[in-house]
């Protein structure tokens, strides 16, 4: 097996699929939905079950697929599913159970506009669903927001690592633009599938240990509360250790844009355009949406004059930005909806209108 990195020109969706094989994933369970069906198609064409032994299965529904992930994860295997917004809604029950049973797994959402059947064009309108829980009960996913095809690939391996480190589901929150876009991507070497069996996995009870039970049921209220407290502790640890973000031109910025994923790419261009006009604009790009870089945004808000949150939604992440800024400076939201990707010049125009006003 090759040890060197390999350069390819790929769609974001294809990069996820290829990276999964290379990361040594044990299983993929999915159901077709635009704009992410290339992932299942790529895996079926690549036939990893003949090389690495990775299981690939087209399930009868998104509901079945996420529950297959539950079953596989319960055996301590590296398993994943991918879908787009309406399909992710269907998976929410399963995701809640996975979080409740503290199972590691990877879920990729290639977001399209909604609500309902909505559009198949890119959007960032699933932010609340991704970072605030999504299903029922008190829980969080670790949410990674790739802004390039390269990161679509890189975050698969990172996602599995974080999932197993914290026994927690990880979501890659992408969108139709990054899923469908082709860029250069450097792919890591093929990793062997792990033979390690976590001590909690259900692989058959052997005489040297107690039986393992994967469940999220705590009928006794005190037991459920103890479990909730355990989860809170875990999330606090994640918040203290796993915040990731990137900054562009924030050092001297009077105006800070906050944007993730596709919008962060757009805003990089906006920063260049605004700087060319003499405006001191910077960009903070959250790479993790949970945990959110609240502390950094709070720090920036002591120096900057204004923060503009840019997302392809009616304004979801802006609520977390507002919490972080806590009234210190004005915070605005700008973004297009309906599958329209915000254009760089629109952001600059909006920013100028707020500076002028």
């Amino acid at each position: 097996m090759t040890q060197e990195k390999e350069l390819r020109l790929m769609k974001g969706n294809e990069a996820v699929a290829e990276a999964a094989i290379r990361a040594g994933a044990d299983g993929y369970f999915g159901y077709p939905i635009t704009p992410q069906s290339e992932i299942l198609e790529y895996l079926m064409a690549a036939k990893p079950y003949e090389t690495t032994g990775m299981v690939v299965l087209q399930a009868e529904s998104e509901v079945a697929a996420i529950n297959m992930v539950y079953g596989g994860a319960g055996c301590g295997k590296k398993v994943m599913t991918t879908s787009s917004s309406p399909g992710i809604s269907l998976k929410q029950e399963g995701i809640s159970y996975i979080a409740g049973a503290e199972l590691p797994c990877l879920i990729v959402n290639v977001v399209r506009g909604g609500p309902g059947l909505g559009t198949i064009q890119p959007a960032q309108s699933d932010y609340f669903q991704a970072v605030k829980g999504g299903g029922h009960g008190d829980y969080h996913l670790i949410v990674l927001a790739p802004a390039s095809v390269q990161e679509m690939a890189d975050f698969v391996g990172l996602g599995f690592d974080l999932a197993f480190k914290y026994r927690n589901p990880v979501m890659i929150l992408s969108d139709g633009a990054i899923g469908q876009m082709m860029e250069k991507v450097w792919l890591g070497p093929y990793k062997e599938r792990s033979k390690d069996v976590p001590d909690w996995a259900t692989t058959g009870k052997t005489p040297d240990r107690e039986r393992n039970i994967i469940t999220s049921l705590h009928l006794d209220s005190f037991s459920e509360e103890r479990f909730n407290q355990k989860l809170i502790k875990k999330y606090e640890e994640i918040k203290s250790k796993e915040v990731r973000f990137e900054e562009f031109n924030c050092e001297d910025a009077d105006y800070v844009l906050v944007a993730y994923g596709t919008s962060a790419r757009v805003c990089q261009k906006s920063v260049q355009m605004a700087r060319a006009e003499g405006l001191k604009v910077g960009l903070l790009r959250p790479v993790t949406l949970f945990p959110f870089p609240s502390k950094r945004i709070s720090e920036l808000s002591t120096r900057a004059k204004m923060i503009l949150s840019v997302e392809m939604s009616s304004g979801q992440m802006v609520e977390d930005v507002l919490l972080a800024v806590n009234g210190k400076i004005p915070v605005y939201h700008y973004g297009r909806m309906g599958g329209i990707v915000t254009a760089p010049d629109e952001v600059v125009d909006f920013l100028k209108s707020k500076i002028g006003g």
Partner: protein
Amino acid sequence: MNDTNQMNDIIKPGNIVYKRTDLMTDDILHYCPGCGHSTVHRIIAEIIDEEGIQSETIGISPVGCSVYLYNYIDIDCQEAAHGRAPALATAIKRLMPDKYVFTYQGDGDLAAIGTAETIHACNRGENILIVFINNGIYGMTGGQMAPTTIPGMKSSTSPYGRDVEMMGNLIKMTDIVATLPGTYFVTRQSVHSAVNVRRTKKAIRKAFHYQKLKKGTCFVEVVSNCPSNWKMTPVESNKWMEENMFPYYPLGDLKDPEKQQEK
């Protein structure tokens, strides 16, 4: 000779004619007196014990009365979301093809909310065993109508009896899955008498055997009772089951290729 000595004289390994199965845990079963669940649990535990496959078996419990199966049988278990056990089993089996995987599901779980998962796992021919307990009622939630509730049967959501015109017909999942190419062995049994218990045990043992041979999906329905929600004594419930349930759900093998070959 005092009483203790007398007891010790009687209780010795050589005199054992019947004992608790080693694979049943010390947890006290929460099932109502006379309920079929305990018997089917015990049958499964006995087979796993006798076949020596504890370290190779993963069970999946449903949402419903038998959610706590994992407390009673000393094997690795996963508890599934309502109706999704066959999806879990699919992945577990495909990721660990040499293990034994079984689901244990009630009628609401398997034949209502989990219909799609049941049909598709069977249709794909997953090498798993599905144990289906059909007592025609939602036990855990307090006696609501199930998809398998027979016409005229009373439940808390069909208090005047199941009106087929209004509430739809019962569904015979076992008959349906028997028509699918993926199933290998499909049978309907009961545990309301000693002879039926033996037959059910034989059927489930056979299903484990077929799973080892990777023959396809095995599906064992157990027509059972629910004395509490049927509001009957255990004895009455068994009699009622024989007289009213069995005409709709006749016992016997629906599909067993190896039996046909014997003929």
